[in-house]
């Protein structure tokens, strides 16, 4: 299927339209809330929570016996929240650091979840098949009702973020100070954590337990590269997430046998890679280019300063000198000389050069300017 056919399908095909909408909304909410996780240095929290949700899915199925995705996700929400608060409890009540707490909760809950899944699969019940789709996600199973839930959760979290914007920002930047100002930091923290868990849970069906944390982190990490403003970062992260969802779905729909979840995550990773390389302020490429440019500029000015030292010993600064005498100077090339001419700092006449008044002035100000 080519891209034209894809767009035709997108408009006409119910399933593809639903999936595209769902992954776009999911990407947006994950990008938005993931920004908070990244800025709190809790990047791995998402990973632990998504794994912690697995036993909840299995238990919800065991208790109710139905495979309705809403029931299962409710189970995931409960066990995800329990995991999140265990992590908090372990870090505040014991000597263990948060990475240890995250690792413990992740493996404990995931182990339990896998155990329950195997147990369920051994049951003589025709209904049990397909629970393992929550491991890696299966976007094709999204129905309109699921998308509606995503839209509602996204709308609620957007309202919450806008309402508590000031409190969230303060807590993210300086938690102790937030406390001294009289804000209930535990409440703000719980609010952020609750919505992060919620975003993870609604993404499990599409992306799955294993890759869910990437949905949370990748758009936020990419967005951070492009801006120094929190609001812009969160907006960009939502946008990157939504685009990852749309592109990922499109790519997996146009190819045979490409699972949607992993493709979305890969597309999001491409955003990250591109941002790390090419963002103007923080990107590696531009940083390197700026570094090279600065170095070249400095070399040029060093040459000019050398010429200035020769010229200032003469009564007339425009007195010509042989190019040859520059040759002992380290770093001098024909190209640098030409650049000096281009800048109107030096005039070149055959094998002779002379400094211009402009170049003379520039060299005089060289050091006072830099300090």
């Amino acid at each position: 299927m080519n891209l034209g056919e894809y767009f035709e399908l997108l408009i006409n095909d119910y399933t593809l339209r639903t999936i595209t909408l769902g992954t776009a909304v999911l990407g947006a909410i994950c990008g938005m809330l993931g920004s908070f996780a990244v800025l709190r240095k809790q990047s791995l929290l998402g990973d632990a929570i998504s794994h912690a949700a697995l036993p909840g899915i299995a238990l919800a199925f065991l208790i109710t016996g139905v495979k309705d995705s809403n029931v299962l996700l409710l189970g995931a929400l409960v066990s995800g929240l329990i995991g999140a608060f265990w992590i908090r409890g372990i870090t505040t009540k014991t000597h263990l650091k948060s990475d240890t707490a995250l690792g413990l909760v992740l493996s404990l809950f995931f182990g339990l979840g896998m155990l329950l899944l195997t147990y369920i699969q051994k049951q003589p019940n025709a209904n049990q098949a397909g629970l393992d789709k929550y491991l890696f996600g299966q976007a094709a199973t999204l129905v309109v009702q699921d998308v509606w839930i995503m839209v509602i959760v996204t709308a609620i979290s957007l309202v919450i973020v806008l309402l508590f914007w000031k409190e969230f920002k303060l807590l993210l930047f300086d938690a102790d100070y937030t406390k001294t100002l009289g804000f209930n930091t535990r409440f703000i923290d719980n609010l952020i954590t609750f919505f992060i868990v919620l975003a993870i849970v609604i993404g499990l069906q599409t992306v799955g337990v294993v890759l869910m944390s990437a949905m949370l982190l990748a758009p936020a990490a990419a967005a951070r590269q492009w801006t120094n403003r929190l609001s812009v970062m969160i907006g960009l992260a939502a946008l990157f997430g939504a685009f990852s969802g749309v592109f990922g779905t499109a790519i997996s729909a146009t190819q045979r046998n490409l699972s949607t979840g992993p493709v979305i995550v890969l597309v999001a990773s491409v955003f990250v890679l591109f941002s790390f390389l090419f963002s103007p302020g923080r990107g590696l490429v531009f940083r390197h280019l700026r570094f090279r440019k600065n170095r070249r500029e400095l070399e040029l000015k060093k040459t000019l300063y050398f010429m200035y030292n020769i010229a200032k010993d003469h009564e007339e600064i425009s007195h010509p000198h042989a190019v040859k005498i520059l040759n002992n100077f380290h770093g001098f090339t024909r190209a640098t000389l030409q650049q000096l001419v281009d800048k109107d700092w030096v005039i070149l006449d055959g094998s002779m050069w002379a400094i211009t008044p402009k170049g003379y002035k520039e060299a005089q100000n060289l050091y006072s300017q830099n300090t």
Partner: protein
Amino acid sequence: MEPKIAVSIDDLTVAYNYKPVLWDIDLAIPEGVLMAIVGPNGAGKSTLIKAILGIIEPIAGSIAIYGKPYHKQRQLVAYVPQKGSVDWDFPTTALDVVTMGTYGSLGWIKRPGAKQKKAALEALEKVGMLSFKNRQISQLSGGQQQRIFLARALVQNASIYFMDEPFQGVDATTEKAIIIILKELRKAGKTLIVVHHDLQTVPEYFDWVTFLNVKKIATGPVSSIFNDDNLTKTYGINYKVSVQE
């Protein structure tokens, strides 16, 4: 007339994981002093401030700000945390950080408006950072970041200021600028409690001092208690400080 007591602490004990960090501290800080808290690393200086401000829950003891518990007197108190306690790569500007000082008086949900912005700009001007107001905070030098923190506390317009090592890692110019502001605040009748490391500058900068090393060693006017005896008791070695005449 006896001066009013701004901060009074009774039998305060704080522990991290069963190890006492502060042991049975009694302290009365008179109104209007510029007080240094000095002591070796691990003496509990920052912990004392954090306990007063309710950031850390003490095991025992009581703390009063002008006779009432801290949570009732918040609007009277401003805090300058250690510069290293936050991530300066956070995506925000200098003005935005200073504006955070107004959040306490705003309360929940309400956003800062023109009045808060004006107060923040004035504070930035006071610390000589007005021209950096739109600068991303990671692009500020250490001294400039410290000034931003000070400005954020100034915006709170408090009566008592708690500062955790405001001179740490700043250059001589910034140190001078900060001490001028602190002295101005004291002149305006404010009480300032400053965790300080450089013993040489204590007599020059401060008029009141508390020696702390898990227990309180001594507290009082610099002129009468800042001596080798108390320094030795606090630092555990035979300490000699040359007080410049």
